[in-house]
C-alpha cells in the first residue's frame, strides 16, 4: 500500500512526520581514503635505460643485417636459376623467330614482286647492327 501504511509511527499527525528511510554512512563514518601521490624514486638510472635501449636497438639492427643476408642469398639463388635457363629459352625463341621471319620475307617478296628496285627483306636501319623488327607486336599469336 502507500508508504504511510508501511512506515507509519503511532500518533503521527501527517505524512511529513514519517520516520526517515535514508541511505547513509555507517555509524562512526567511513574509513579514511588515501589520495596522496606515492611515486617512488627508485628504479634504473638514466644511463642504464639509455644503454638498455641502445643495446636493444643494436641487437635489432644486427638481426636486420642477418635477415638481409639470408634474403640476398635467396634472391641470388633465384637469379642464378634464371641465368642458367636463359640460353635455352632464348635458343628456342630464336628458332621460332627465324622460321617466322622467313615466312614474313617470303610474304614480303610476294607482295612487292612488281615494285621495281625493291630489295626484299631487311630494308631496315643502316647502322649494320641487327635490330628486332619494330612492328609494335612482339608475338601476334600470343597477344
Amino acid at each position, binding site marked *: 500500500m502507500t508508504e504511510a501504511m508501511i512506515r507509519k509511527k503511532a500518533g503521527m499527525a501527517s505524512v511529513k512526520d514519517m520516520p526517515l528511510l535514508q541511505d547513509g554512512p555507517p555509524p562512526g563514518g567511513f574509513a579514511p581514503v588515501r589520495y596522496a601521490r606515492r611515486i617512488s624514486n627508485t628504479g634504473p638510472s638514466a644511463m642504464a635505460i639509455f644503454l638498455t635501449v641502445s643495446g636493444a636497438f643494436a641487437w635489432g639492427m644486427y638481426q636486420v643485417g642477418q635477415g638481409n643476408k639470408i634474403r640476398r642469398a635467396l634472391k641470388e639463388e633465384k637469379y642464378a636459376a634464371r641465368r642458367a635457363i636463359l640460353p635455352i629459352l*632464348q635458343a*628456342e625463341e630464336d628458332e621460332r623467330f627465324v622460321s617466322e621471319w622467313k615466312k614474313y620475307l617470303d610474304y614480303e617478296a610476294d607482295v612487292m614482286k612488281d615494285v621495281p628496285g625493291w630489295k626484299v627483306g631487311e630494308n631496315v636501319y643502316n647502322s649494320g647492327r641487327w635490330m628486332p623488327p619494330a612492328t609494335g607486336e612482339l608475338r601476334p599469336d600470343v597477344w
Partner: protein
Amino acid sequence: MSSAAVDATGNPIPTSAVLTASAKHIGLRCMPENVAFLKCKKNDPNPEKCLDKGRDVTRCVLGLLKDLHQKCQKEMDDYVGCMYYYTNEFDLCRKEQEAFEKVCPLK
C-alpha cells in the same frame, strides 16, 4: 596448363617448373654450351647467326632433362609438382629439393 613433367613419349617438357627445378643441374652441366651461346649473342644479336650454338644448348638441356628424369623419376616429378604449385619459389620446396638432390646429386 599441365603440371605433368613429361609428354606422351616420356620426354620431359621444358616448362618453367621443369626448368627451374633442374636449373642448378643445367647451370653446372651445360655451362660450356650456355656460355658459348651467350658470347655469340653478345657478339651479334642476330638470331640467324647463333642458331647452331642455340641447337647445342637445346640438345644439351633436353638431354640433361631426359637423363635426370630417367635417373630419379619420382623425386623429379615431386619437385616439379611442388615448383608448379608454388610458381617456381625455391624456398617453399626445400624438402622436395633435398630429396631430389640426394638421388640426383649436383656433383
